[in-house]
């Protein structure tokens, strides 16, 4: 069954892994919030680089080095356009979203966070948007406040306003736009506007939102945005940090060495211009180049269509899942407020047992705390099962999944 939005039959042909059989059954991949599969165009792009113009970038003058440099920089331009940034200088390549967050907590954080300052996060952050700030706060004797989320996973903006009104040393807000555990989408534009009336910068963890929603940093006006290529059809090993040029210019470097310098003398060094100041050493050239094909693929389909396709699948899955007995679904029921992620528990079946049973049916789902233990404590569960969709998923796969849940219900005699 194709969705009304996307020609999934056609799309699936572009993903070699989707033809795999596991335990003799067709492979059903429902762990896209973790990482997505890669289309052949991305795989081929990487093979082409290694086969045809493998060389280091930004240095040599021979032809293939120029080809490699151009291809690498072309990806930067495409990323800039994809998120509607002002300039490719605002796009910094890292290893992943986690490293992008660490870059800012290290460089910006050490320059700007002082004793007694306040960093505002929420209870549904991924560990990678908690731990770097915790370490910074410990080092500087600063404080972290976690915005509470309610049972449906939504934030209360009044609480944020309260902190901003009552703490004149609030210095940064860092929030995930879409929760990887619940799928909830927060009203990020409102939050940014509110924060800016208090002159407080906002870091957006876009690891889950950028792959699934249209992202426009210019209209959002966020100060930083981080995301990972591997969650949006791209290769692993490529993350992106967007930062406003003015802020990035004032920041000290993160990692130091080659490429990030202009001149090095025995006593001092002049740092390179943006974005190279933050890209020390030989970067992940092949995978950055491969990522450009992922962006082409997404642009070709259109982010609006992707969003609608995922809403359609989520609606269908929630309807079917709700019919099962002892099904507990987490997150907001309003589909406009969530992405294509569904966290759930089925009776007293532990998520790891459920994942084992589904694996027998060649269905890949995630089970555990989803790197969001603070959230799990809040929800008072030790783990949940999670399915998450992308462009190639179909209602047929959801039916297979629902049948397998039926099998789990039988085994556990619910």
């Amino acid at each position, binding site marked *: 069954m194709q969705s009304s939005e996307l020609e999934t039959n056609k799309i699936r042909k572009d993903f070699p892994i989707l033809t795999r059989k596991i335990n003799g059954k067709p492979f059903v991949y429902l762990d896209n919030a973790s990482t997505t599969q890669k289309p052949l165009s991305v795989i081929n792009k990487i093979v082409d680089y290694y086969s045809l113009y493998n060389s280091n970038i930004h240095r040599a003058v021979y032809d293939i080095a120029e080809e490699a440099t151009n291809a690498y920089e072309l990806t930067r331009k495409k990323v800039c356009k994809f998120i509607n940034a002002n300039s490719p200088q605002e796009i910094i390549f890292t290893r992943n979203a986690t490293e992008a967050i660490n870059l800012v907590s290290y460089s910006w954080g050490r320059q700007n966070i002082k004793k007694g300052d306040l960093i505002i996060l929420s209870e549904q952050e991924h560990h990678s948007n908690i731990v770097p700030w915790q370490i910074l706060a410990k080092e500087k004797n600063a404080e972290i406040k976690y915005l509470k989320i309610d049972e449906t996973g939504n934030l209360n903006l009044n609480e944020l306003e309260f902190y901003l009104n009552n703490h004149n040393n609030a210095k940064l807000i860092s929030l995930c736009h879409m929760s990887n555990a619940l799928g909830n989408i927060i009203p990020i534009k409102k939050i940014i506007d509110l924060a800016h009336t208090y002159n407080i910068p906002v870091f957006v963890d876009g690891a889950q939102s950028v792959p699934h929603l249209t992202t426009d940093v210019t209209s959002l006006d966020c100060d930083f945005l981080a995301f990972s290529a591997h969650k949006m059809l791209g290769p692993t090993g490529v993350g992106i940090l967007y930062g406003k040029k003015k802020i990035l210019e004032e920041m000290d470097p993160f990692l130091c060495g080659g490429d990030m310098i202009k001149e090095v003398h025995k006593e001092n060094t002049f740092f390179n211009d943006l974005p190279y100041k933050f890209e020390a050493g030989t970067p992940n050239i092949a995978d950055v180049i491969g990522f450009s094909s992922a962006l082409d693929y997404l642009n070709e389909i259109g982010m609006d269509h992707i969003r609608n396709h995922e809403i359609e699948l989520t609606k269908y899955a929630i309807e079917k899942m709700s019919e099962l007995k002892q099904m507990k679904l987490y997150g907001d029921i309003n589909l406009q407020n969530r992405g294509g992620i569904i966290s759930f528990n089925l009776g007293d079946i532990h998520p*790891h047992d459920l994942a*084992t049973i589904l694996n027998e049916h060649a269905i890949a789902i995630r089970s555990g705390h989803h790197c969001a233990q603070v959230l799990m404590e809040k929800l008072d569960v030790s*783990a949940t099962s999670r399915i998450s969709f992308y462009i190639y998923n179909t209602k047929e796969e959801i039916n297979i999944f629902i049948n397998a849940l039926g099998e789990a219900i039988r085994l556990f005699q619910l």
Partner: protein
Amino acid sequence: MSDDIYREIILDHYRNPRNKGKIDNADVVIHDSNPLCGDQIDIYLNVVEGQIKDIKFDGKGCAISQASASMLTEMVMDKPLTTAKDISKDDILENIGLTNLGPARIKCALLSLKVLKMGMVKYYTDKEPNTAEEMEKDSNLF
């Protein structure tokens, strides 16, 4: 294969665990968890003249980890604490009837044994440090 794993006996121990709870003033209390799954096991031991007089476990996690902890307590109750040294991975897997678990899930099945062995070493560390060291070597499970 799921039918083989989630048999009646596993579900029974999962839903009605034996020797579950805490022992106040236990001689040994030991805790460990499995970072991949988040399974957690605490084991409480009362030891009299080298014999396990009482054992309880507390914890949360999947059916495999909790059922195997429950079965392990039955296996060693009233036995010498040092029997923990001799229990092997295969003994546990046979005892719970799961001999073809994948590597990720084997860790779930063996967590309680690991904790029991840690408890044994802890108990002897004060009393007979040399024996404890030997035991630690012998009982290296993972």
